[in-house]
Protein backbone atom coordinates (compact mmCIF):
# COMPACT_ATOMS: atom_id res chain seq x y z
CA UNK A 1 0.00 0.00 0.00
CA UNK A 2 1.42 3.40 -1.03
CA UNK A 3 2.56 5.75 1.71
CA UNK A 4 3.34 9.30 0.74
CA UNK A 5 4.30 12.45 2.60
CA UNK A 6 3.38 16.08 2.23
CA UNK A 7 5.40 18.49 4.36
CA UNK A 8 4.15 21.69 5.98
CA UNK A 9 6.79 24.03 7.30
CA UNK A 10 7.15 27.63 8.40
CA UNK A 11 7.88 29.73 11.46
CA UNK A 12 6.11 29.65 14.79
CA UNK A 13 2.49 30.73 14.58
CA UNK A 14 2.18 30.42 10.82
CA UNK A 15 -0.74 28.01 11.05
CA UNK A 16 0.88 24.69 10.14
CA UNK A 17 -0.99 22.75 12.81
CA UNK A 18 -4.28 24.38 11.88
CA UNK A 19 -3.75 23.83 8.15
CA UNK A 20 -3.11 20.13 8.65
CA UNK A 21 -6.18 19.87 10.86
CA UNK A 22 -8.32 21.53 8.20
CA UNK A 23 -7.63 18.87 5.55
CA UNK A 24 -6.80 15.77 7.58
CA UNK A 25 -9.29 12.90 7.47
CA UNK A 26 -8.50 12.00 11.05
CA UNK A 27 -7.98 14.14 14.12
CA UNK A 28 -4.39 15.27 13.82
CA UNK A 29 -1.75 14.10 16.23
CA UNK A 30 -0.10 17.04 17.92
CA UNK A 31 3.00 17.24 20.00
CA UNK A 32 2.41 20.63 21.52
CA UNK A 33 4.05 21.79 24.70
CA UNK A 34 3.56 24.95 26.63
CA UNK A 35 5.87 27.52 25.15
CA UNK A 36 8.59 28.50 27.53
CA UNK A 37 10.78 30.84 25.56
CA UNK A 38 10.28 33.72 23.14
CA UNK A 39 7.60 31.67 21.47
CA UNK A 40 5.22 32.16 24.36
CA UNK A 41 4.89 35.78 23.34
CA UNK A 42 3.21 34.57 20.19
CA UNK A 43 1.22 31.53 21.24
CA UNK A 44 0.50 29.53 24.35
CA UNK A 45 1.42 26.11 22.97
CA UNK A 46 3.88 25.26 20.26
CA UNK A 47 4.82 22.16 18.27
CA UNK A 48 8.02 20.57 19.56
CA UNK A 49 8.30 17.42 17.46
CA UNK A 50 5.76 17.24 14.69
CA UNK A 51 2.14 17.50 13.67
CA UNK A 52 0.61 14.61 11.88
CA UNK A 53 -2.53 14.20 9.84
CA UNK A 54 -3.56 11.84 7.08
CA UNK A 55 -5.62 11.84 3.92
CA UNK A 56 -6.98 8.53 2.66
CA UNK A 57 -6.59 8.20 -1.07
CA UNK A 58 -8.58 6.06 -3.49
CA UNK A 59 -7.15 2.55 -3.64
CA UNK A 60 -6.18 2.48 0.01
CA UNK A 61 -3.12 4.66 -0.23
CA UNK A 62 -2.38 7.31 2.38
CA UNK A 63 -1.02 10.80 2.15
CA UNK A 64 0.67 11.60 5.43
CA UNK A 65 0.63 15.26 6.35
CA UNK A 66 3.62 16.26 8.45
CA UNK A 67 4.07 19.62 10.07
CA UNK A 68 7.56 20.53 11.16
CA UNK A 69 8.16 22.28 14.47
CA UNK A 70 8.47 25.99 13.90
CA UNK A 71 11.31 26.70 16.24
CA UNK A 72 14.80 26.56 14.77
CA UNK A 73 16.17 24.61 17.71
CA UNK A 74 14.14 21.64 16.50
CA UNK A 75 15.56 21.86 13.01
CA UNK A 76 17.10 18.39 13.28
CA UNK A 77 13.53 17.19 12.77
CA UNK A 78 13.14 19.00 9.50
CA UNK A 79 15.38 16.79 7.44
CA UNK A 80 13.99 13.65 8.99
CA UNK A 81 10.44 14.67 8.24
CA UNK A 82 11.04 15.96 4.74
CA UNK A 83 12.88 12.93 3.42
CA UNK A 84 10.71 11.34 0.74
CA UNK A 85 8.17 14.15 0.71
CA UNK A 86 6.24 14.70 -2.51
CA UNK A 87 6.31 18.46 -2.07
CA UNK A 88 6.63 21.33 0.37
CA UNK A 89 4.07 23.76 1.72
CA UNK A 90 5.56 26.82 3.39
CA UNK A 91 3.28 28.90 5.58
CA UNK A 92 4.50 32.36 6.53
CA UNK A 93 2.95 34.49 9.26
CA UNK A 94 2.71 38.02 7.86
CA UNK A 95 2.34 39.39 11.37
CA UNK A 96 5.85 38.39 12.41
CA UNK A 97 8.62 41.02 12.51
CA UNK A 98 10.28 40.03 9.23
CA UNK A 99 8.18 37.58 7.22
CA UNK A 100 10.26 37.98 4.06
CA UNK A 101 13.34 36.90 5.98
CA UNK A 102 11.35 33.94 7.27
CA UNK A 103 10.53 32.97 3.71
CA UNK A 104 14.16 33.18 2.60
CA UNK A 105 15.18 31.12 5.58
CA UNK A 106 12.79 28.26 4.94
CA UNK A 107 13.45 28.27 1.21
CA UNK A 108 17.14 27.86 1.93
CA UNK A 109 16.71 25.22 4.59
CA UNK A 110 14.45 23.10 2.39
CA UNK A 111 16.35 23.78 -0.80
CA UNK A 112 17.01 20.10 -1.48
CA UNK A 113 13.35 19.12 -1.24
CA UNK A 114 12.25 22.09 -3.32
CA UNK A 115 14.74 21.29 -6.05
CA UNK A 116 13.55 17.73 -6.37
CA UNK A 117 9.83 18.39 -5.98
CA UNK A 118 7.94 21.69 -5.77
CA UNK A 119 6.88 24.31 -3.24
CA UNK A 120 3.73 26.34 -2.63
CA UNK A 121 3.64 29.29 -0.26
CA UNK A 122 0.71 30.42 1.83
CA UNK A 123 0.83 33.76 3.63
CA UNK A 124 -1.30 33.87 6.76
CA UNK A 125 -2.47 36.71 9.01
CA UNK A 126 -2.66 39.16 6.12
CA UNK A 127 -5.98 40.35 7.44
CA UNK A 128 -4.14 41.53 10.54
CA UNK A 129 -1.10 42.97 8.80
CA UNK A 130 -1.16 43.51 5.03
CA UNK A 131 2.49 44.50 4.66
CA UNK A 132 4.58 43.07 3.12
CA UNK A 133 2.24 42.42 0.21
CA UNK A 134 2.23 39.34 -1.99
CA UNK A 135 4.31 41.09 -4.61
CA UNK A 136 7.11 41.44 -2.06
CA UNK A 137 7.05 37.67 -1.62
CA UNK A 138 7.22 37.19 -5.37
CA UNK A 139 10.30 39.41 -5.46
CA UNK A 140 12.01 37.26 -2.83
CA UNK A 141 11.29 34.16 -4.90
CA UNK A 142 12.52 35.88 -8.01
CA UNK A 143 15.82 36.77 -6.34
CA UNK A 144 16.27 33.17 -5.30
CA UNK A 145 15.32 31.96 -8.78
CA UNK A 146 12.40 29.95 -7.46
CA UNK A 147 9.08 29.85 -9.28
CA UNK A 148 6.19 29.01 -7.02
CA UNK A 149 2.58 29.90 -6.30
CA UNK A 150 2.00 32.34 -3.45
CA UNK A 151 -1.44 33.06 -2.02
CA UNK A 152 -3.03 34.66 0.95
CA UNK A 153 -4.28 31.84 3.15
CA UNK A 154 -6.41 31.45 6.22
CA UNK A 155 -5.15 28.19 7.72
CA UNK A 156 -8.55 27.61 9.34
CA UNK A 157 -10.23 27.70 5.98
CA UNK A 158 -10.28 24.32 4.28
CA UNK A 159 -10.83 25.85 0.84
CA UNK A 160 -7.77 28.06 1.17
CA UNK A 161 -5.58 25.16 2.25
CA UNK A 162 -7.04 22.94 -0.47
CA UNK A 163 -6.27 25.52 -3.14
CA UNK A 164 -2.70 25.76 -1.92
CA UNK A 165 -2.27 21.99 -2.05
CA UNK A 166 -3.82 21.90 -5.51
CA UNK A 167 -1.44 24.62 -6.66
CA UNK A 168 1.42 22.46 -5.45
CA UNK A 169 0.07 19.41 -7.30
CA UNK A 170 -0.43 21.34 -10.52
CA UNK A 171 3.02 22.83 -10.15
CA UNK A 172 4.34 19.28 -10.10
CA UNK A 173 2.33 18.43 -13.20
CA UNK A 174 0.53 21.32 -14.91
CA UNK A 175 -1.12 18.93 -17.35
CA UNK A 176 -2.98 17.02 -14.65
CA UNK A 177 -6.61 16.70 -15.55
CA UNK A 178 -9.03 14.82 -13.44
CA UNK A 179 -12.09 15.23 -15.49
CA UNK A 180 -13.13 12.66 -17.96
CA UNK A 181 -14.12 13.58 -21.43
CA UNK A 182 -17.50 15.17 -21.24
CA UNK A 183 -18.23 14.70 -24.87
CA UNK A 184 -18.27 10.95 -24.80
CA UNK A 185 -19.12 10.47 -28.39
CA UNK A 186 -18.47 7.41 -30.31
CA UNK A 187 -17.55 8.60 -33.73
CA UNK A 188 -18.99 6.15 -36.14
CA UNK A 189 -18.28 5.80 -39.78
CA UNK A 190 -21.20 6.26 -42.09
Amino acid sequence: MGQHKLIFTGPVGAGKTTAIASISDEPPVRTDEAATDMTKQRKRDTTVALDYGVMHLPGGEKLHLYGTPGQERFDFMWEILSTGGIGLMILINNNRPDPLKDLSFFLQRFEALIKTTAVAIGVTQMDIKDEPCLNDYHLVLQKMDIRAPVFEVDARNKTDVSLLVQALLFSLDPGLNLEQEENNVEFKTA
Partner: protein
Amino acid sequence: MGRSHFSFHNVKISRKLMSTEQTMPISSLGSQHKSESKRMNAEQTLQISIPESKSQLIKVVRVFIRKRYRLVENDQANVTIVDCDAYEARSMLDDLRQQYPDRTIIGLSVSDQQDDSVIHVQKPFSQDDLIQALDKASETVNPSKIVVGEKMGGSIHQAASAVSDKQADNDRQVARNGISTRTNAAQYNPADYLQEALKTAYNKSRKAGFNLRLDVWWQPIIIFPSMGKVWVDADDQKLQAFCRLPLKTFARHHSQEAQRSTEIKISPEPMFNTNKLSGSLQAMDAFLWKVAWWNAGGQLPLGITERQLIKLKSWPNITRFLCPDHAVQICALLFHAPVSPLRIAEILDIESKEVYGLISAANALGLIETIQNQSITPVKPSASSVSSTANRPNTGLLRRILSRFNRK
Protein backbone atom coordinates in the same frame (compact mmCIF):
# COMPACT_ATOMS: atom_id res chain seq x y z
CA MET B 1 -17.13 9.50 -55.16
CA GLY B 2 -19.25 7.00 -53.37
CA ARG B 3 -20.48 7.30 -49.86
CA SER B 4 -18.04 4.74 -48.58
CA HIS B 5 -15.14 7.06 -49.35
CA PHE B 6 -15.74 9.26 -46.37
CA SER B 7 -17.43 9.15 -43.08
CA PHE B 8 -18.66 11.66 -40.53
CA HIS B 9 -18.12 12.65 -37.01
CA ASN B 10 -21.31 13.87 -35.59
CA VAL B 11 -22.00 16.78 -33.37
CA LYS B 12 -25.38 17.76 -32.07
CA ILE B 13 -25.68 21.40 -31.21
CA SER B 14 -28.38 22.58 -28.89
CA ARG B 15 -28.54 26.34 -28.53
CA LYS B 16 -28.40 26.84 -24.83
CA LEU B 17 -27.02 30.34 -25.12
CA MET B 18 -27.76 33.08 -27.57
CA SER B 19 -26.21 36.45 -28.05
CA THR B 20 -29.26 38.47 -27.18
CA GLU B 21 -28.10 41.07 -24.74
CA GLN B 22 -26.42 43.22 -27.31
CA THR B 23 -29.26 43.25 -29.78
CA MET B 24 -32.35 43.44 -27.63
CA PRO B 25 -33.62 46.62 -26.05
CA ILE B 26 -32.09 46.53 -22.59
CA SER B 27 -35.15 47.94 -20.91
CA SER B 28 -37.28 45.12 -22.24
CA LEU B 29 -34.94 42.25 -21.63
CA GLY B 30 -36.68 41.14 -18.48
CA SER B 31 -40.12 41.00 -20.02
CA GLN B 32 -38.95 39.38 -23.22
CA HIS B 33 -36.90 36.74 -21.55
CA LYS B 34 -39.69 34.27 -20.91
CA SER B 35 -41.21 34.57 -24.35
CA GLU B 36 -37.81 34.21 -25.91
CA SER B 37 -37.14 31.08 -23.92
CA LYS B 38 -40.35 29.56 -25.25
CA ARG B 39 -39.39 30.50 -28.75
CA MET B 40 -35.98 28.97 -28.35
CA ASN B 41 -37.43 25.78 -27.03
CA ALA B 42 -39.60 25.58 -30.10
CA GLU B 43 -36.62 25.97 -32.38
CA GLN B 44 -35.13 23.00 -34.04
CA THR B 45 -31.76 22.22 -32.53
CA LEU B 46 -28.70 22.28 -34.73
CA GLN B 47 -27.13 18.91 -35.31
CA ILE B 48 -23.72 18.99 -36.84
CA SER B 49 -21.45 16.56 -38.58
CA ILE B 50 -17.78 17.00 -39.37
CA PRO B 51 -15.88 14.97 -41.95
CA GLU B 52 -13.47 12.58 -40.35
CA SER B 53 -10.46 13.54 -42.38
CA LYS B 54 -9.51 16.48 -40.15
CA SER B 55 -9.18 15.30 -36.61
CA GLN B 56 -7.54 18.59 -35.61
CA LEU B 57 -10.59 20.41 -36.89
CA ILE B 58 -12.82 18.28 -34.74
CA LYS B 59 -10.74 19.09 -31.68
CA VAL B 60 -10.84 22.79 -32.38
CA VAL B 61 -14.57 22.80 -33.02
CA ARG B 62 -15.19 20.78 -29.89
CA VAL B 63 -13.22 23.28 -27.82
CA PHE B 64 -15.08 26.17 -29.41
CA ILE B 65 -18.56 24.80 -28.90
CA ARG B 66 -18.04 22.97 -25.63
CA LYS B 67 -20.87 22.95 -23.10
CA ARG B 68 -22.85 25.19 -25.39
CA TYR B 69 -23.56 22.21 -27.60
CA ARG B 70 -23.48 18.44 -27.41
CA LEU B 71 -22.25 15.68 -29.67
CA VAL B 72 -24.71 13.19 -31.22
CA GLU B 73 -25.15 10.63 -33.96
CA ASN B 74 -24.67 11.20 -37.67
CA ASP B 75 -28.17 10.55 -38.87
CA GLN B 76 -29.50 13.45 -36.82
CA ALA B 77 -27.24 16.05 -38.43
CA ASN B 78 -28.76 19.00 -40.23
CA VAL B 79 -25.55 21.02 -40.47
CA THR B 80 -22.17 19.83 -41.69
CA ILE B 81 -18.87 21.59 -41.24
CA VAL B 82 -16.54 20.88 -44.13
CA ASP B 83 -12.90 21.73 -44.52
CA CYS B 84 -13.00 22.98 -48.09
CA ASP B 85 -9.22 22.88 -48.35
CA ALA B 86 -9.18 19.17 -47.64
CA TYR B 87 -8.37 16.57 -50.22
CA GLU B 88 -11.49 15.62 -52.20
CA ALA B 89 -13.53 18.33 -50.49
CA ARG B 90 -15.37 19.07 -53.71
CA SER B 91 -16.57 15.52 -54.21
CA MET B 92 -17.43 15.42 -50.53
CA LEU B 93 -19.67 18.45 -50.94
CA ASP B 94 -21.29 16.98 -54.04
CA ASP B 95 -21.99 13.78 -52.23
CA LEU B 96 -23.43 15.65 -49.27
CA ARG B 97 -25.79 17.61 -51.47
CA GLN B 98 -26.91 14.49 -53.21
CA GLN B 99 -27.57 12.57 -50.03
CA TYR B 100 -28.85 15.44 -47.90
CA PRO B 101 -30.20 18.17 -50.15
CA ASP B 102 -31.63 20.14 -47.22
CA ARG B 103 -28.50 20.10 -45.14
CA THR B 104 -26.85 23.39 -44.25
CA ILE B 105 -23.12 23.38 -44.92
CA ILE B 106 -20.50 25.50 -43.24
CA GLY B 107 -17.31 25.62 -45.30
CA LEU B 108 -13.92 26.44 -43.85
CA SER B 109 -11.23 27.65 -46.22
CA VAL B 110 -8.30 29.99 -46.45
CA SER B 111 -9.72 31.71 -49.53
CA ASP B 112 -13.08 33.25 -50.35
CA GLN B 113 -15.63 30.79 -51.56
CA GLN B 114 -17.87 31.47 -54.54
CA ASP B 115 -20.42 28.89 -53.54
CA ASP B 116 -23.45 30.76 -52.19
CA SER B 117 -24.99 27.59 -50.83
CA VAL B 118 -22.19 27.29 -48.28
CA ILE B 119 -21.82 29.46 -45.19
CA HIS B 120 -18.22 30.48 -45.49
CA VAL B 121 -15.81 30.81 -42.58
CA GLN B 122 -12.37 32.02 -43.51
CA LYS B 123 -9.31 30.46 -41.93
CA PRO B 124 -7.80 31.12 -39.51
CA PHE B 125 -11.06 31.40 -37.67
CA SER B 126 -11.86 32.28 -34.11
CA GLN B 127 -14.46 30.91 -31.77
CA ASP B 128 -16.75 33.79 -32.55
CA ASP B 129 -16.39 33.32 -36.29
CA LEU B 130 -17.61 29.79 -35.85
CA ILE B 131 -20.39 30.74 -33.47
CA GLN B 132 -21.59 33.40 -35.90
CA ALA B 133 -21.64 30.84 -38.69
CA LEU B 134 -23.60 28.47 -36.48
CA ASP B 135 -26.05 31.23 -35.65
CA LYS B 136 -26.46 31.84 -39.34
CA ALA B 137 -26.99 28.15 -39.88
CA SER B 138 -29.55 28.22 -37.13
CA GLU B 139 -31.44 30.94 -38.99
CA THR B 140 -31.58 28.66 -42.00
CA VAL B 141 -32.85 25.81 -39.90
CA ASN B 142 -35.13 28.11 -37.91
CA PRO B 143 -36.11 30.93 -40.28
CA SER B 144 -38.52 32.47 -37.78
CA LYS B 145 -35.75 33.81 -35.60
CA ILE B 146 -36.77 37.04 -33.94
CA VAL B 147 -35.42 40.38 -35.14
CA VAL B 148 -34.77 42.77 -32.31
CA GLY B 149 -34.11 46.43 -32.02
CA GLU B 150 -31.02 48.31 -31.00
CA LYS B 151 -32.42 51.19 -29.04
CA MET B 152 -32.03 51.20 -25.32
CA GLY B 153 -34.13 53.12 -22.91
CA GLY B 154 -34.41 53.81 -19.19
CA SER B 155 -31.84 54.74 -16.67
CA ILE B 156 -28.58 53.03 -15.98
CA HIS B 157 -29.99 51.37 -12.94
CA GLN B 158 -33.02 50.09 -14.81
CA ALA B 159 -30.79 48.84 -17.56
CA ALA B 160 -28.50 47.14 -15.11
CA SER B 161 -31.45 45.60 -13.32
CA ALA B 162 -32.95 44.45 -16.57
CA VAL B 163 -29.74 42.75 -17.55
CA SER B 164 -29.66 41.13 -14.14
CA ASP B 165 -33.26 39.98 -14.41
CA LYS B 166 -32.70 38.48 -17.79
CA GLN B 167 -29.69 36.63 -16.61
CA ALA B 168 -31.15 35.56 -13.30
CA ASP B 169 -30.83 31.87 -14.02
CA ASN B 170 -27.40 32.27 -15.42
CA ASP B 171 -25.92 34.75 -13.00
CA ARG B 172 -24.26 32.35 -10.66
CA GLN B 173 -22.51 30.64 -13.51
CA VAL B 174 -21.50 33.96 -15.01
CA ALA B 175 -20.32 35.27 -11.67
CA ARG B 176 -18.12 32.29 -11.12
CA ASN B 177 -16.92 31.75 -14.64
CA GLY B 178 -17.04 35.27 -16.01
CA ILE B 179 -18.84 34.01 -19.05
CA SER B 180 -21.45 36.13 -20.72
CA THR B 181 -23.50 35.56 -23.81
CA ARG B 182 -21.58 38.31 -25.60
CA THR B 183 -20.05 36.45 -28.51
CA ASN B 184 -19.75 38.84 -31.41
CA ALA B 185 -16.01 39.32 -31.17
CA ALA B 186 -13.02 37.28 -30.11
CA GLN B 187 -11.58 40.20 -28.23
CA TYR B 188 -12.80 43.16 -26.29
CA ASN B 189 -11.23 46.53 -25.80
CA PRO B 190 -10.58 47.15 -22.08
CA ALA B 191 -10.53 50.89 -22.81
CA ASP B 192 -14.27 50.73 -23.49
CA TYR B 193 -15.04 49.35 -20.06
CA LEU B 194 -14.71 50.22 -16.42
CA GLN B 195 -11.46 48.33 -15.92
CA GLU B 196 -9.31 50.79 -17.85
CA ALA B 197 -10.77 53.82 -16.09
CA LEU B 198 -10.26 52.00 -12.81
CA LYS B 199 -6.64 51.21 -13.62
CA THR B 200 -5.99 54.83 -14.53
CA ALA B 201 -7.55 55.97 -11.27
CA TYR B 202 -5.54 53.39 -9.31
CA ASN B 203 -2.31 54.59 -10.86
CA LYS B 204 -3.12 58.21 -10.18
CA SER B 205 -4.13 57.61 -6.60
CA ARG B 206 -1.05 55.51 -5.87
CA LYS B 207 1.21 58.07 -7.45
CA ALA B 208 -0.43 61.00 -5.71
CA GLY B 209 -0.89 59.13 -2.47
CA PHE B 210 -4.35 60.46 -1.74
CA ASN B 211 -7.93 59.27 -2.09
CA LEU B 212 -9.56 59.62 -5.48
CA ARG B 213 -13.13 59.50 -6.64
CA LEU B 214 -13.94 57.92 -9.99
CA ASP B 215 -17.18 58.97 -11.66
CA VAL B 216 -18.23 56.79 -14.57
CA TRP B 217 -21.92 57.69 -15.04
CA TRP B 218 -22.80 55.20 -12.37
CA GLN B 219 -22.08 54.91 -8.69
CA PRO B 220 -18.98 56.82 -7.62
CA ILE B 221 -16.03 54.57 -6.88
CA ILE B 222 -13.70 55.81 -4.17
CA ILE B 223 -10.11 54.63 -3.97
CA PHE B 224 -8.12 54.62 -0.75
CA PRO B 225 -4.52 53.90 -1.84
CA SER B 226 -3.02 54.02 1.63
CA MET B 227 -5.39 51.26 2.75
CA GLY B 228 -5.22 49.41 -0.57
CA LYS B 229 -9.01 49.49 -0.61
CA VAL B 230 -11.77 50.60 -2.90
CA TRP B 231 -15.38 51.40 -2.13
CA VAL B 232 -18.54 51.42 -4.19
CA ASP B 233 -22.10 51.47 -2.95
CA ALA B 234 -23.28 48.51 -5.00
CA ASP B 235 -23.36 44.78 -4.50
CA ASP B 236 -21.71 42.35 -6.86
CA GLN B 237 -24.88 41.74 -8.82
CA LYS B 238 -25.24 45.41 -9.70
CA LEU B 239 -21.55 45.78 -10.37
CA GLN B 240 -21.58 42.78 -12.64
CA ALA B 241 -24.53 44.09 -14.60
CA PHE B 242 -22.80 47.44 -14.97
CA CYS B 243 -19.60 45.75 -16.11
CA ARG B 244 -21.32 43.94 -18.93
CA LEU B 245 -21.77 47.01 -21.08
CA PRO B 246 -19.25 49.53 -22.39
CA LEU B 247 -19.12 52.71 -20.32
CA LYS B 248 -20.25 54.98 -23.11
CA THR B 249 -23.21 52.79 -23.83
CA PHE B 250 -24.34 53.46 -20.31
CA ALA B 251 -23.50 57.11 -20.65
CA ARG B 252 -25.56 57.52 -23.81
CA HIS B 253 -28.65 56.16 -22.15
CA HIS B 254 -28.19 57.90 -18.86
CA SER B 255 -31.05 60.19 -19.79
CA GLN B 256 -32.62 60.50 -16.38
CA GLU B 257 -29.58 62.03 -14.86
CA ALA B 258 -29.02 65.75 -15.02
CA GLN B 259 -25.51 65.61 -16.34
CA ARG B 260 -24.67 63.97 -19.60
CA SER B 261 -20.98 64.57 -19.73
CA THR B 262 -19.08 62.10 -21.82
CA GLU B 263 -15.96 62.39 -19.73
CA ILE B 264 -14.84 60.01 -17.05
CA LYS B 265 -14.07 62.11 -14.00
CA ILE B 266 -11.27 61.36 -11.59
CA SER B 267 -11.13 63.85 -8.77
CA PRO B 268 -9.56 64.05 -5.30
CA GLU B 269 -11.81 62.79 -2.56
CA PRO B 270 -11.52 64.63 0.75
CA MET B 271 -10.58 62.44 3.64
CA PHE B 272 -13.52 61.20 5.57
CA ASN B 273 -14.32 58.51 8.02
CA THR B 274 -14.66 55.21 6.20
CA ASN B 275 -16.74 53.88 9.06
CA LYS B 276 -19.60 56.02 7.81
CA LEU B 277 -19.59 54.33 4.42
CA SER B 278 -22.39 51.92 3.75
CA GLY B 279 -21.24 48.73 2.12
CA SER B 280 -17.82 47.26 2.45
CA LEU B 281 -14.35 48.24 1.46
CA GLN B 282 -12.75 45.83 -0.97
CA ALA B 283 -9.14 45.09 -1.76
CA MET B 284 -8.06 47.08 -4.82
CA ASP B 285 -6.53 44.17 -6.71
CA ALA B 286 -9.45 41.84 -6.02
CA PHE B 287 -11.86 44.56 -7.17
CA LEU B 288 -9.98 45.26 -10.41
CA TRP B 289 -9.70 41.52 -11.04
CA LYS B 290 -13.44 40.94 -10.89
CA VAL B 291 -14.27 44.08 -12.84
CA ALA B 292 -11.94 42.94 -15.62
CA TRP B 293 -13.36 39.45 -15.36
CA TRP B 294 -16.89 40.72 -15.93
CA ASN B 295 -15.82 43.27 -18.53
CA ALA B 296 -14.16 40.51 -20.54
CA GLY B 297 -17.27 38.36 -20.64
CA GLY B 298 -15.14 35.40 -21.61
CA GLN B 299 -13.19 37.30 -24.26
CA LEU B 300 -9.54 38.13 -24.58
CA PRO B 301 -8.31 41.70 -24.29
CA LEU B 302 -7.01 43.46 -27.37
CA GLY B 303 -3.37 42.56 -27.79
CA ILE B 304 -3.77 38.90 -26.91
CA THR B 305 -5.04 36.49 -29.53
CA GLU B 306 -6.25 32.94 -29.13
CA ARG B 307 -3.10 31.47 -30.60
CA GLN B 308 -0.56 33.84 -29.11
CA LEU B 309 1.96 32.43 -26.70
CA ILE B 310 1.63 34.04 -23.30
CA LYS B 311 2.90 33.41 -19.81
CA LEU B 312 1.90 34.21 -16.25
CA LYS B 313 4.54 36.32 -14.50
CA SER B 314 3.35 35.29 -11.06
CA TRP B 315 0.33 33.56 -9.60
CA PRO B 316 -2.69 35.70 -8.82
CA ASN B 317 -4.04 35.62 -5.29
CA ILE B 318 -6.63 33.02 -6.24
CA THR B 319 -7.86 32.40 -2.71
CA ARG B 320 -9.15 35.98 -2.61
CA PHE B 321 -10.07 36.60 -6.25
CA LEU B 322 -13.21 35.60 -8.08
CA CYS B 323 -12.05 32.58 -10.02
CA PRO B 324 -13.50 29.86 -12.24
CA ASP B 325 -13.50 26.19 -11.37
CA HIS B 326 -10.29 25.47 -13.24
CA ALA B 327 -8.36 28.55 -12.09
CA VAL B 328 -5.56 26.58 -10.45
CA GLN B 329 -4.99 24.45 -13.53
CA ILE B 330 -5.12 27.42 -15.89
CA CYS B 331 -2.65 29.35 -13.75
CA ALA B 332 -0.32 26.36 -13.45
CA LEU B 333 -0.20 25.95 -17.22
CA LEU B 334 0.31 29.66 -17.81
CA PHE B 335 3.01 29.79 -15.16
CA HIS B 336 4.82 26.70 -16.32
CA ALA B 337 5.69 27.65 -19.89
CA PRO B 338 4.55 29.85 -22.78
CA VAL B 339 1.22 28.58 -24.05
CA SER B 340 -1.62 29.97 -26.13
CA PRO B 341 -5.07 30.60 -24.62
CA LEU B 342 -6.67 28.22 -27.08
CA ARG B 343 -4.17 25.50 -26.28
CA ILE B 344 -5.01 25.74 -22.58
CA ALA B 345 -8.67 25.15 -23.34
CA GLU B 346 -7.67 22.15 -25.44
CA ILE B 347 -5.37 20.66 -22.81
CA LEU B 348 -7.88 21.04 -20.02
CA ASP B 349 -10.81 20.28 -22.29
CA ILE B 350 -12.79 23.18 -20.92
CA GLU B 351 -14.74 26.01 -22.46
CA SER B 352 -12.35 28.57 -23.89
CA LYS B 353 -14.30 31.46 -22.34
CA GLU B 354 -13.32 30.28 -18.89
CA VAL B 355 -9.67 30.48 -19.90
CA TYR B 356 -10.01 33.80 -21.70
CA GLY B 357 -11.83 35.41 -18.80
CA LEU B 358 -9.11 34.48 -16.37
CA ILE B 359 -6.41 35.70 -18.75
CA SER B 360 -8.21 39.01 -19.15
CA ALA B 361 -8.44 39.49 -15.40
CA ALA B 362 -4.79 38.55 -14.91
CA ASN B 363 -3.80 40.88 -17.71
CA ALA B 364 -5.61 43.76 -16.03
CA LEU B 365 -3.35 43.23 -13.01
CA GLY B 366 -0.27 43.16 -15.21
CA LEU B 367 0.36 39.47 -14.62
CA ILE B 368 0.41 38.36 -18.26
CA GLU B 369 3.53 38.46 -20.37
CA THR B 370 3.15 38.10 -24.12
CA ILE B 371 5.88 36.15 -25.83
CA GLN B 372 7.11 38.06 -28.82
CA ASN B 373 9.13 35.22 -30.26
CA GLN B 374 6.28 32.97 -31.31
CA SER B 375 8.73 30.43 -32.66
CA ILE B 376 9.40 29.26 -29.10
CA THR B 377 8.13 25.75 -28.79
CA PRO B 378 5.86 25.53 -25.78
CA VAL B 379 6.75 22.71 -23.47
CA LYS B 380 4.20 19.96 -23.28
CA PRO B 381 2.79 20.05 -19.78
CA SER B 382 3.44 16.81 -18.03
CA ALA B 383 5.22 15.66 -14.95
CA SER B 384 8.22 14.61 -16.95
CA SER B 385 8.52 18.03 -18.56
CA VAL B 386 8.54 19.84 -15.23
CA SER B 387 11.57 18.01 -14.05
CA SER B 388 13.46 14.93 -14.87
CA THR B 389 14.10 14.29 -11.21
CA ALA B 390 13.19 10.82 -10.09
CA ASN B 391 11.69 12.14 -6.85
CA ARG B 392 8.70 13.60 -8.60
CA PRO B 393 5.55 11.69 -7.75
CA ASN B 394 3.86 9.99 -10.64
CA THR B 395 0.81 11.40 -12.34
CA GLY B 396 -1.45 8.67 -11.02
CA LEU B 397 -0.60 9.54 -7.42
CA LEU B 398 -1.09 13.25 -8.02
CA ARG B 399 -4.43 12.54 -9.61
CA ARG B 400 -5.52 10.44 -6.67
CA ILE B 401 -4.55 13.17 -4.23
CA LEU B 402 -6.29 15.74 -6.35
CA SER B 403 -9.46 13.68 -6.36
CA ARG B 404 -9.73 14.32 -2.63
CA PHE B 405 -10.15 18.03 -3.13
CA ASN B 406 -13.25 19.71 -4.27
CA ARG B 407 -11.90 22.14 -6.79
CA LYS B 408 -15.01 24.29 -6.99
